[in-house]
């Protein structure tokens, strides 16, 4: 039993076996912080393979499921030692009228594996729901995806609602999706445009001040 074996099982998407091994390792005194840091490196490696399409979406999703299964086991142990650093809290969804969520699902997975706490609102999400959920979560980011030009205006609508409620500065608004662009982000005064999933963690982390990091 070793951390390397655990890493391989997560990489290969073997959720149940990974979960059992993680439990065994913890019972035998493995450091939960060391385990989570190793798994973060594992998922970074998986992310790189996916970015080059050396592996495909099903493989990275299975690895993500395996990681989630292991994190469930790690959770109580991490709480005892002060929790895991959270780089930021994100509500993410596909805007109203849009049913395409593959891009959003990839971004969600990449953010979670890079230390962000993510609440997935799904697709066809009303603009006001984004705001309400962000308030309920105490989120740092509101991230919206649009795959069609005729649903892009909903991304602007989210920002307008934030302004109307006087809470624009509380959240960093991130946009993405095939028809979106930096030009569109500038036009609607979004805080960040993410061209692709792999750039999201670094770009979003750069918007956070060090004192904004929390534990989860």
């Amino acid at each position: 039993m070793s951390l390397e074996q655990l890493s391989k099982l997560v990489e290969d998407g073997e959720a149940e076996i990974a979960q059992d091994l993680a439990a065994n390792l913890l019972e035998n005194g493995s450091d939960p912080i060391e385990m989570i840091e190793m798994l973060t490196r594992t998922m970074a490696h998986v992310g790189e393979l996916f970015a080059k399409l050396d592996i495909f979406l099903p493989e990275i999703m299975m690895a993500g499921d395996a990681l989630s299964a292991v994190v469930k086991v790690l959770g109580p142990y991490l709480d005892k030692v002060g929790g895991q650093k959270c780089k930021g809290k994100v509500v993410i969804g596909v805007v109203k009228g849009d049913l395409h969520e593959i891009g959003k699902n990839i971004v969600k997975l990449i953010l979670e594996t890079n230390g962000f706490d993510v609440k997935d609102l799904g697709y066809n999400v009303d603009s006001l729901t984004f705001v309400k959920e962000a308030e309920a979560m105490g989120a740092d980011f509101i991230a919206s995806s649009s795959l069609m030009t005729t649903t892009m205006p909903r991304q602007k609508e989210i920002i307008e609602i934030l302004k109307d409620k006087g809470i624009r500065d509380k959240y960093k608004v991130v946009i993405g999706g095939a028809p979106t662009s930096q030009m569109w982000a500038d036009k609607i005064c979004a805080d960040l445009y993410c061209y692709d999933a792999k750039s999201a963690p670094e770009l979003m982390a750069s918007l956070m001040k060090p004192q904004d990091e929390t534990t989860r």
Partner: protein
Amino acid sequence: MATAYRLWEMLDRARTGRFMDEDDFLPRRFTPTLKKLIKKYEIKYDPKTPCPSDDAMADRIWQAAWDLFREVGYYNTDSHRIIEVSDEEIKEALYMANDQYWVGGGKDARLWKHRQVEDKTPPFCIMSPDITVDEKYHQSMCMAYLKEPLLDGFCGPILEETFGHLIESGGPTEISGCIQHIYNQKMAARLLGRPGTFMVAVGTAEHDSGQIAVSDDNWGVQKTDSRLVGSLTEFKTADTLLNRALHYAQYGCFTGNLTGAIYGGWCGGSEGTAVTTVAYSLIGLLIHGAIFNQHFPFHLNTCSNTTRELLWSISMAGQALSRNSKLLYTSNGFANAGPMTEMLFRETAVHAMVSTVSGWHLWEMASTRNKYRNRATPLEARLGIEAGHAVANQGMSRAEINEIANRLLATYEDLAADAPMGCEYHECYDVAKALPTQEHLDMFRKIKDEIAAMGVNFLY
């Protein structure tokens, strides 16, 4: 005879079929089944042959696609139920499907017929920019495309604004934008003396209400035109999409099935992309009542399909469909580069030639990854379609095109991720006259001559 006669049975199954949680459908039903079938039927991608000559594997891809549709079904995200079909129903639909249709009206009507692999009959050619365009350029761009002599069907550019208002899906601005869209298209066709040209979609209409708003045999989408029903990735639908299938059938226009299997997504690699693409043709036939299937498989990262891993999938899918059915299907090019770049002309030519010899009809060209407003023109589509006509007329083989494709791929495939964006429409076309600039034409001729020197005998 149209194929929508079983539509109500399918709509009923969208409500009463097997229940499944949406989160489970792709990872636990679609992808494992696809992987199993790829292994069972020994389907294997070879990067050296973007245009393979492998009849046996084409037939295996067909069988794998049949099994995929039958074993997985089609998932309705609104009802959380799976529409499933039987072997007998697939056989019935294939038997009843027509192998040709007259589309468009009056003197502009065109006969659209099924093609074989290496068929000497030229492909049916639909031209489309597939992108959004500034309101002020919309009618000019429609005219520019409709001036192309080899155009058999037209899909107009998409509006983002209607008389200065941002178009929002499902809202009144979309209704207005759709009417403006079809008016511009029809007016352009009339002004150019081809009023009955086959129009294949109103892309501004994302919501079903937008589509319904433009169904009018006098001023809107006519019964000699078609509209498209899309899918959600992968093998999923929703009530709003089924609404379209029903409306088009009841209104009486033709229905096209719109699909874009994602390489690198739930389909996996080239093998899965090919199988999924073929299976979508069966879905279009049985569930949407489509007379043709419009396919644009694309790369998850680059959003294009002109590099070898996608060309292979396109070629094999076309061969599978041609050899095993009498269906109609178009191969929609998605290029990396933008207008008035040599790369875009080469990409379009490769896509068109590979598709043509593999039995496809053509739909060219979504330039600049289908992502940037105003960045597509008819001239790249013209080159692709002339190349398609040339290789068909010449009776070129898959092996010959494979060699030409490899030579052209060597000039651009390593540049796919950082392709040049080129120009916007108004920068390389005379907007008032809807004609290409001389500089643009010179570049077109240069690349055409380059391809001719490789052994392609253009007809003029």
